[in-house]
């Protein structure tokens, strides 16, 4: 595996040779700095820790300051570990987009979904609502309906899908194609959509 940390910029369209318009997401990926190397001997697994995004020194905790100092870099906002990175690195090395991705690659993108707040079952779980507006229905068109039987089992089963907080969770979108790379601005153009708001952090894995 290999990957980078990035920031979602927004969406636009690109056209392929067949004249087909492709919805695509623009991500500013990297440059990332190697801040720690996990080894089999010391940690029991192999991984590379990458850091991305500038951060003020006064906003960084002292333990993290020391961590970045050991890697020989300035403080960073986001730190992510990538297990079994495809290549070997030394501490403090800077990774740019061209080192990891090429046009035509298929990548997975991890992001944090926009928070939707408290939502009903129709939006949250895709329920169909109670049916029509007639036959005595007057105020429960988007309700869940029955949540179980009566004296047996005399309780509501655990995990039953109900209304509640939606969004704000971590989601991975798999197999998105890299349409274009603009190395000067560290831009990665990926076909399809990606979870999260603009300016939010995303992890791109290959």
């Amino acid at each position, binding site marked *: 595996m290999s990957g980078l940390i990035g920031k979602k*910029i*927004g969406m*636009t*369209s*690109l*056209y*392929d*040779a*067949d*004249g087909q*318009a492709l919805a*695509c997401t*623009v991500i*500013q990926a990297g440059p990332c700095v190697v801040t720690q190397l996990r080894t089999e001997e010391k940690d029991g697994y192999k991984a590379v820790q990458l850091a991305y995004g500038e951060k003020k020194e006064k906003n960084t905790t002292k333990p993290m300051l020391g961590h970045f100092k050991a890697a020989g870099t300035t403080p960073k906002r986001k730190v992510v570990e990538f297990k079994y990175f495809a290549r070997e690195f030394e501490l403090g090395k800077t990774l740019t987009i061209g080192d990891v991705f090429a046009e035509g690659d298929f990548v997975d993108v991890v992001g944090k979904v926009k928070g939707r707040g408290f939502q009903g079952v129709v939006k949250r779980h895709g329920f169909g609502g109670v049916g029509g507006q007639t036959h005595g229905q007057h105020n429960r068109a988007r309700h869940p309906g029955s949540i179980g039987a009566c004296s047996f089992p005399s309780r509501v089963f655990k995990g039953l899908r109900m209304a509640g907080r939606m969004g704000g969770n971590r989601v991975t979108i798999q197999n998105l194609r890299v349409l*274009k790379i*603009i190395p000067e*601005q560290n*831009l990665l*153009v990926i076909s399809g959509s990606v979870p999260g708001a*603009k300016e939010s952090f995303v992890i791109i894995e290959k």
Partner: protein
Amino acid sequence: MSELIKLVEATNENRKSEYPDFKSGDTIVVHVKIREGGKERLQLYQGTVMQRRNPNSAGETFTVRKISNGIAVERIFPILSPSIAKIELLRRGKVRRARLFYLRGRQGKAARIKELKTSK
């Protein structure tokens, strides 16, 4: 919009400057490239422009309506689409709105659009 997104959109091949400056109400001919069994040919599609959406963006499209064998056809083209070979402007129309959805409810004589005559 973000400058970075504009940078990505700039990589689309933009041939808008080759096309005539058409508006809703105009009659145009769109030369569409069609690929059939590895061969490419041109198909002409002539009709009235109903609207232009999202102008000056990468997603700009225009809708062309025509009556084909008595059946109305509306076709939406992305203006940056590489399958458009050429656009010809046949006739300018005199219309008072940007989106001509009222044409859908009309037939024959009622669906006519007056020609815009510019004084020179």
